[in-house]
């Protein structure tokens, strides 16, 4: 019994049905980790992007180095580091928070590149027209650049969202009770791994497909020329 749900191993179907509620609880954790991790990645990535294009060379270069370092180290190493090393320095974070930070940090290296591509794809002429109209930096970003960059950023960001969702089971190694971890625990106790692991294997494609469909819908709604302003 886990979370008050007992399993019934009398038949494969009954077994599957009886453990679904447990996996559902794990799924919520998985989604929490993926969504918050993605938000962290979006925000951090934007910060990296902005720091990298400041006029202050030292800041730009050290940011570039840091981002490269983050991208070139495996997620698992970062995860272990945050979870096992930080407490030695007095930083004790809950497993899920550690996992979200590690996921977000790793993916921020990718989203920073997406921002660069998306903002860079807004033609020079748009900047020049905006400057010629004497718009402030803030208004240029708010009204001209961001509305045109978002549709260019969306597809790549969507891909990373999906791939991040798929990577959340890694968090089970630092004791996060996500769907995979729970399925494993059920198997450990029943000595029947096939059904719980297969269920996890089926639920993930369903989730990622839903996610992809949602992103495609968003892309369809957003006009290619930018978020329309009237």
């Amino acid at each position, binding site marked *: 019994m886990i979370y008050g749900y007992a399993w019934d191993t009398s038949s494969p179907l009954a077994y599957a049905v009886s453990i679904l509620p447990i996996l559902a609880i794990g799924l919520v954790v998985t989604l929490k980790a993926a969504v918050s991790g993605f938000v962290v990645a979006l925000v951090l990535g934007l910060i990296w992007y902005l720091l990298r294009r400041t006029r202050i060379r030292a800041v730009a270069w050290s940011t570039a180095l840091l981002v490269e370092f983050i991208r070139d180290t495996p997620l698992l190493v970062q995860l272990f580091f945050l979870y096992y090393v930080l407490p030695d320095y007095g930083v004790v974070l809950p497993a899920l928070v550690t996992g979200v930070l590690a996921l977000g940090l790793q993916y921020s290296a990718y989203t920073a590149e997406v921002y660069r591509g998306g903002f860079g794809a807004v033609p020079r002429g748009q900047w020049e027209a905006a400057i010629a109209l004497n718009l402030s930096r803030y208004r240029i970003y708010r009204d001209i650049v961001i509305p045109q960059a978002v549709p260019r950023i969306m597809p790549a960001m969507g891909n990373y969202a999906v791939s991040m969702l798929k990577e959340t089971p890694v968090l089970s190694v630092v004791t996060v009770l996500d769907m995979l971890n729970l399925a494993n625990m059920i198997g450990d106790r029943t000595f029947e791994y096939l059904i719980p692991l297969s269920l996890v294997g089926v639920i993930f494609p369903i989730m990622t497909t839903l996610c992809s469909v949602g992103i495609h819908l968003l892309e369809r709604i957003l006009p290619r020329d*930018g978020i*329309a302003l009237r």
Partner: protein
Amino acid sequence: MTGPLIEFRDVGKRFDRLTVLDRFCFTVQQGEKVSLIGPSGSGKSTVLRILMTLEPFQEGTLTLGGISYHQPHGRGPFKASERHLREVRRNVGMVFQSFNLFPHMTALRNIVEAPMAVLGLGREEAESRALELLRLVGLLDKKDHFPAQLSGGQQQRVAIARAMAMRPRVLLFDEPTSALDPELVGEVLGVIRMLAHEHDLTMLLVTHEMRFAREISDRVCFFDSGQIVEQGSPDRIFAEPAHPRTRAFLKSVLAESRTA
């Protein structure tokens, strides 16, 4: 007589090692309509882009309406604060070769954006002024169209209305008809011609439309290799160019337009 509205004094402009303008001097009086002609790469567009603060310059001084582009302790490529540059830009508007309308905004929104954001006009006032401008350029019925739904000529007319909405003292035209299909050139020139009748508006026009330059300008400047080789009234420049390079250029351009 007051001083010139625009004054380039010994302005030097380099792109890396390529010198585009060297000790360049040029003055324009308020209300003057000046055409800049010459072969491509001769620096005429650079003059407009420097005036619009799109390109920094390295030497000399430039003043517009009594305001210098450089500040005593200014920083950045223009050696001026962003605030100072915005002060300079208040006087200048620009129409680009490739229109550069904002593709995600309707024609009307393209025009009201800056007056609302920069001049602080309310939506109602900005729109009524914009509609007046759209009527002037003959596109009142296109106010809710997005740029992609407009022809090149229509887009450029909206772009001219957009620049005019900021009520600039100086309007810069950087080859405004070069990107247009031949049959659309006329409608854009028509709008520019109409603006040329505005007495107080100072216009600088970079163009390859020689006949048009001759028709609307008070003065024509022939550029070659970053220098004004020759300047004067359009009738004199076109009818009896003094400099051999002006003669050669006009001959080649006119021959081209005859065969076209």
